[in-house]
């Protein structure tokens, strides 16, 4: 929202110091995003008339202009523009002038003929960001004076405010000026209103058929209007505020809105002399001022000519093209209404048309600003229409939805206990009064009548915020709470950190791919896509599915790196997946995935062992269940009891082929909700067994189809409590072992529990181990 310093200073005696005002605005919560100094006169630039123009035979692209700057001297200037003609008055930068962009105008020649200055465009004068040629000034302009004076361009400062959603009132200068006046302790004058001679009473018929959407509809009747151009100061201010000058009536309407925050519309009262506000009917159309014909919706609010019931404006959004005032207009009906914010917002959204009016109505305007707006309108118009008359007896129709001032109570105690600072009750009252909250105090209770321009203030904390803003956030101290809570990580969070450090220790880099997938991404990696949730309004179609697995994302990252000459990388991610559930929210869980390019089943098993060791967890490896998308011969599920908590192994070579990833890729995927939430009990120490231990080396032959773990389990059971450790130290396939079998050599370290094992005890133990192995399907290797 652009705010002009000059308008603010008309409304209140603010210090003539834009920086101080900017600081104040920031401290009041009206954040200044940008501050622009505009219309700074350029000394040395004067108005001049082009006396004659000549072309030079050898310089096709430039024109020789001979100008008179009012001193009777004819100066010669080369000019590259083409939009000027002999007789035009234009800005001339005389020799020695320093232009706003820093260049100095020097005597420069083309073809040996000197140029004695430069004709200027709006850009060159710092008046605009764009222009199409030399600035042509009014033909009757005085010569030899500053073009800034001729144009009535005021030296001004534009504050570009980043307004928060609650401050509807600051969409007009008046709201900003009110806050600043209170801040600087100066009275608020408001917009200048001339002493107006009111004409005879004149009321027009107004009917409101949509009382919920339209809370107030007022018509002020104005006569003796002559449509023409605006005074220069009006055009200049509008230009600074980003609006184009149209004519004196439209400009007055716009400026009044920018100043008072009251959107208004001027109808030709001879054409539209009565009004009806109603909801549109489906199928009705209206051509708005921007030339677009719009199909109306039954929820659109329409302002109609009361005589014909035909729409003359899409209420709160934009007027009708055919109801614009014309050169012949002499009487005006000025509409200033209050519309319910939501219907206007939806209307604007439906028609993709956010206008200056709709922006204000959807935030909430002041239903009581219409009169001031009408008077200001006539004050501005009188500069170009001296006889203009505002007639009394304006039509004011209000419905039950029209906001009324509300009374809000807050206790001084509550203010102090919420802010944590002592503020004198007189100060509280004076702050609230200074921003228009009519405030009284009785004992501890402060009662404020909230003005209708502040629809955001409805309860005690709203008043507390106003007090805090004007008391100054910087004047409230800094304390810290007396907490009895101790800061710490939860068990799960501490274990997650351990896990992250193990992964880093394993040399693996954390990846953070997008959690959004394209249709088919899951299928590509061999996973089902039937339990996915979709984004209803995705940014792009490739990001419309919420992931149910971390695998597609991390494989994409792996492939990306492989294609950028980083073939040997290991990546991990800890992140959420969102499979559909039968509840409102998905079955969201936290997962771990690790992939290593060039890694194999040993890589992923070693990683899992390290993680299990670090987190004191254990799982069973189940190769009988082949995880989807993994290498059927080199992968297994990880189970805790009957619950599958993950998969380990290698990615299916077919998947890798489809993805274009070269070499093997190891994978480990674990559901962390199970693993991280466990709280392993502290391990209880066993005394060191000091009896000497013995090693039994036993080699067996067993069919390939029987897992080695079966044999290991049998040996473990047979060795019983004497077993210290069991290691598979050799696996052999080849000569001496039949096809389809392999040799498995185990070393069992055994130790007596109460005494050293005797030779015969050892022999007995070996015998039962062998027997158990045979029972498990192995034979002792010769």
């Amino acid at each position, binding site marked *: 929202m652009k705010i002009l310093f000059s308008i603010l200073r008309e409304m209140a005696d603010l210090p003539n110091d834009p920086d101080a005002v900017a600081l104040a605005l*920031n401290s009041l*919560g009206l954040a200044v995003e940008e501050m622009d100094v505009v219309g700074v006169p350029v000394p040395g630039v004067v108005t001049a008339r082009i006396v004659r123009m000549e072309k030079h035979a050898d310089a096709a692209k430039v024109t020789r202009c001979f100008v008179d700057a009012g001193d009777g001297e004819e100066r010669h200037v080369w000019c590259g523009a083409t939009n000027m003609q002999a007789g035009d008055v234009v800005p001339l930068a005389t020799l020695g002038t320093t232009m706003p962009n820093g260049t100095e105008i020097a005597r420069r020649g083309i073809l040996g003929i000197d140029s004695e200055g430069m004709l200027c465009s709006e850009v060159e004068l710092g008046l605009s960001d764009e222009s199409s040629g030399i600035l042509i000034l009014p033909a009757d302009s005085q010569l030899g004076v500053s073009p800034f004076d001729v144009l009535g361009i005021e030296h001004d400062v534009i504050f570009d405010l980043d307004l928060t959603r609650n401050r509807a009132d600051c969409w007009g200068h008046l709201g900003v000026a009110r806050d600043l006046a209170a801040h600087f302790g100066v009275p608020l004058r408001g917009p200048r209103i001339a002493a107006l001679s009111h004409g005879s009473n004149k009321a027009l018929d107004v009917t409101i058929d949509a009382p919920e959407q339209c809370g107030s509809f007022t018509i002020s009747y104005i006569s003796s209007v002559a449509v023409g151009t605006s005074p220069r100061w009006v055009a200049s201010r509008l230009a600074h505020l980003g609006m184009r000058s149209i004519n004196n009536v439209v400009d007055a309407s716009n400026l009044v809105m920018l100043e008072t925050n009251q959107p208004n519309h001027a109808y030709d009262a001879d054409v539209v002399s009565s009004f009806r506000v109603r909801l549109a009917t489906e199928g009705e159309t209206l051509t708005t001022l921007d030339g677009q014909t719009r199909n109306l919706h039954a929820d659109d609010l329409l302002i109609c000519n009361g005589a014909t019931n035909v729409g003359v404006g899409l209420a709160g959004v934009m007027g009708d093209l055919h109801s614009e005032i014309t050169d012949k207009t002499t009487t005006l009906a000025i509409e200033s209404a209050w519309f319910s914010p939501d219907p206007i917002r939806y209307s604007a959204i439906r028609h993709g048309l956010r206008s200056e009016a709709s922006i204000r109505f959807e935030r909430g305007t002041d239903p009581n600003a219409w009169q001031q707006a009408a008077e200001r309108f006539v004050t501005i118009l009188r500069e170009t229409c001296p006889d203009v008359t505002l007639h009394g007896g304006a039509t004011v129709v209000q419905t039950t939805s029209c906001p009324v001032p509300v009374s809000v109570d807050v206790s001084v105690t509550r203010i102090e206990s919420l802010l*944590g600072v002592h503020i004198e009750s007189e100060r509280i009252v004076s702050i609230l009064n200074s921003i228009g909250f009519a405030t009284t105090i009785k004992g501890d209770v402060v009662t404020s009548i909230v003005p209708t321009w502040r629809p955001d203030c409805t309860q005690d904390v709203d008043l507390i915020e106003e007090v805090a803003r004007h008391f100054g*956030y910087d004047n409230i101290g800094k304390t810290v709470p007396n907490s009895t809570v101790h800061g710490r990580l*939860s068990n799960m969070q501490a274990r997650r950190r351990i896990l992250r450090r193990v992964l880093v220790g394993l040399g693996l880099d954390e990846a953070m791919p*997008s*959690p959004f997938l394209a249709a088919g991404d899951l299928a590509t990696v061999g996973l089902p896509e039937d339990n996915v949730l979709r984004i209803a309004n995705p940014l792009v179609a490739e*990001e419309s599915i919420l992931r149910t697995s971390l695998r597609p994302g991390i494989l994409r990252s792996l492939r990306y790196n492989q294609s950028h000459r980083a073939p040997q990388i290991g990546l991990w991610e800890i992140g*959420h997946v969102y499979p559909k559930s039968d509840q409102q*929210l998905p079955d969201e869980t936290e997962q771990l995935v690790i992939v290593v390019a060039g890694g194999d089943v040993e890589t992923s098993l070693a990683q899992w062992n390290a993680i299990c060791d670090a987190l004191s967890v254990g799982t069973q490896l189940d190769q009988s269940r082949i995880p989807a998308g993994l290498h059927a011969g080199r992968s297994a599920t990880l189970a805790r009891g009957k619950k599958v908590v993950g998969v380990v192994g290698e990615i299916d070579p077919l998947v890798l082929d489809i993805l274009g990833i070269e070499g093997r890729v190891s994978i480990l995927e674990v559901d962390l909700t199970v693993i991280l939430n466990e709280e392993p009990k502290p391990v209880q120490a066993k005394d060191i067994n000091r009896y000497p231990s013995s090693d039994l080396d036993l080699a067996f032959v067993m069919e390939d189809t029987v897992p080695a773990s079966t044999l290991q389990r049998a040996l473990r059971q047979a060795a019983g409590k004497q077993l210290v450790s069991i290691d598979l130290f050799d696996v052999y396939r080849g000569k001496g072992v039949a096809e389809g079998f392999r040799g498995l050599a185990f070393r069992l370290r055994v130790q007596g529990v109460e005494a050293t094992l005797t030779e015969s005890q050892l022999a007995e133990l070996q015998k039962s181990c062998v027997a158990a192995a045979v029972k498990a399907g192995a034979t002792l290797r010769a």
Partner: protein
Amino acid sequence: MTSASTPEHGQLAQALADGLVQIRDAATSDQLRGVVSALTGKKGPIASIKSSLGKVTDIEVRKELGQLVNDALTALGVANDGRSRELRAAEFSSQIESERVDMSEIAMSANVERRLGRMHLVTQAMERLEDVFIGLGFQIAEGPEVETDFYNFEALNMPPSHPARSMWDTLFVESDVDGSVVLRTHTSPVQIRVMQDWPPPIYAVMPGRVFRKETPDATHMPVFHQIEGLVIDRGITFADLAGTIESFTKAFFGPGFTSRLRPSYFPFTEPSAEFDIRRHDGTWIELGGCGMVHPHVLRAGGLDPNEWSGFAFGFGIDRMAKERHGINDIRDMYSDDVRFTEQFS
């Protein structure tokens, strides 16, 4: 020593002197072992002197000679230790010389040049922030990333069709009731979940992933991270909020940094503020939003605003990482490109 001087005295002195010379002259450890075992063995000169001591009649002299024998053996032992160390040192020095390597060559070999993995910069920033807040007495709460409209908006004082909802460009998840499930646009819904689940007093921060319907550019991502803070206790004030932000600023950025609050607006806090951090050079960075928890929000969390008050604050984590490491384009941080990642050890 007595004045008596027997032939044994002379023999012993001679044997000791000879022995010391032999030990000194031994050229290798093996030779030294031979010399010493010859000198101190059962057939060595000292042993033979010792065995002849029985013939000495004077008990005092015999006693004295016995002592001298022990002293001689000790002296030989000391000499042996010294020479032995000299010889072994010499012997190892040649081994050491023969084993000399170029350490720089080994340092560069594939077996040695093994780097640890890297945590994502966002994770690093998140852990640093968590640690600072733990130090300030906060616990850490987490919540789901796919949220209901209730937690993301309604409970945060934004009933359906509240205009402030447009402050967030929301990604909606398809569901039975249109618009009822969203990808959380901020970490604030965790505030409500914590209020509902944790008995007050509450001192918690809530880091996590958030989502906006925003086209990626150098400073924006549709998926990014925030950290939210919530304090609920009896008698919590706006001054407590300002002081907590100040403590955090000094703890996280350093003692030379200060903070300030500026009025702002959020539907879920009132009074609301933006907080800025002042760098050493006097420039300010806008960090995040904060304010006193709105009474409607306390009620939505099941707390009585007359009994409990509190404050909340929140800011972006990604920007912290971006600022800390001077990253120009935030998209690089999410590229998973190891050429980018491996810079940050």
